[in-house]
């Protein structure tokens, strides 16, 4: 094969690979395009991670998605904050809140923590968003719960920067784990000889 032809083939192959990778890694492009549209039917899960413990985690397979919207409110007045920018950390989707403080509905991935996946499948996925708005502290909100095929919403509290504020740093809120899953987690690793609080007694 001539060197020019070989070079051409190599370039064509790398362009194809780049297109595939960008399609996988930049779902926010498609998400932003759909975010403005009316909420449509639920998107079906593409891949169900953690369905069986023998299944290997493939980081390049597309995640299942679910619709999500984020509401941003002033943490002190509890009034909606329009014009805040909300970034979904996992996919870098960027959305802006409307007059009612809500972002449009958008497709967000359902990501379960791979640390626990083969041991105890988490009952919901978790996401992180950051909210930015001029005059307010940046707010990080971790552990937003998402479920396949289910609409979810989350509320981010933002705090106004006042004249007395000196050291201005982000505010973190971490949603706690669902207590039903915590009960499953401890029961999964409990030994018969180590009851601890024991299996739940219905009479208590």
């Amino acid at each position, binding site marked *: 094969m001539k060197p020019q032809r070989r070079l051409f083939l190599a370039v064509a192959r790398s362009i194809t690979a780049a297109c595939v990778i960008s399609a996988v890694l930049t779902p926010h492009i498609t998400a932003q395009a759909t975010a403005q549209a009316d909420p449509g039917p639920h998107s079906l899960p593409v891949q169900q991670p953690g369905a069986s413990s023998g299944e290997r985690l493939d980081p390049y397979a597309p995640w299942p998605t679910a619709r999500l919207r984020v*509401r941003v*409110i002033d943490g002190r007045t509890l009034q909606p904050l329009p014009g805040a920018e909300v970034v979904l950390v996992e996919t870098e989707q960027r959305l802006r809140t409307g007059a009612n403080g809500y972002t449009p509905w958008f497709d967000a991935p359902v990501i379960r923590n791979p640390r626990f996946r083969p041991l105890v499948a988490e*009952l*919901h996925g978790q996401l992180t968003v950051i909210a930015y708005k001029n005059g307010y502290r940046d707010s990080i909100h971790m552990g937003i*719960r998402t*479920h*396949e095929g*289910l*609409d*979810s*919403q989350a*509320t981010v509290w933002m705090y106004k920067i006042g004249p007395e504020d000196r050291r201005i740093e982000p505010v973190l*809120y*971490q*949603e*706690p784990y*669902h*207590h*039903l899953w915590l*009960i*499953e987690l401890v029961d999964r690793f409990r030994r018969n000889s180590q009851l601890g609080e024991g*299996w*739940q007694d*219905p*009479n208590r």
Partner: protein
Amino acid sequence: MSKFRVFVSAAVALGIISPTAAYAAPTVDNTQEPATIRVAIRENNPNGEPDPRGRIVWVQSVPFYEYCQDVLPNEWMPSWHAESLKAGAIAIKMFAWYHHLHPITIDGFTFDVDNTTNFQTFRYLSRQPVTDRAVASIRRYAYVKPNGEIIELNYRAGIPNDPNWQYRNAQKMAQWGSQYWAQRGRNYIQILQFYYEQRALRQVQT
């Protein structure tokens, strides 16, 4: 006769016999649905989660149905079957209603429920569309004794993929059990009937 009356009034005066409490048990017929509920917010533990043994920081008044909406996604799993969520919504509502009728005072704070598993897990503004629909769908109903008396409907997590008969024996609903029965085609009334015996579904006065 007069001797007996004198004896009884003397016994009452001396505190030997307490006069019979002349109040009617709160029923759905003589009690209005609560408009708001007082939620004691307990101190967070170092991980940032409300601590069931923590100090009470303040008492928040929450509209009654907003309270139910902000409890259901934290007690039941929003991805569960709709009938399971409805059964959960009834249990949460009746638990809260009962405790609204029986407030307590701790450390100078008077409240109906707190925001931890001492009562029901409550996170302000954590409501989700699917659980809101479950709360709205049971809004006209109450699950009470056949005479209408409002009682506490208790529930516990239970065991996944199991009917949880032991919770029926204890007259508590198993949360996982409600999902088990809903997946097998039972509706929320049948689920409630399975776990709580001798109860009736009644319409609430509006």
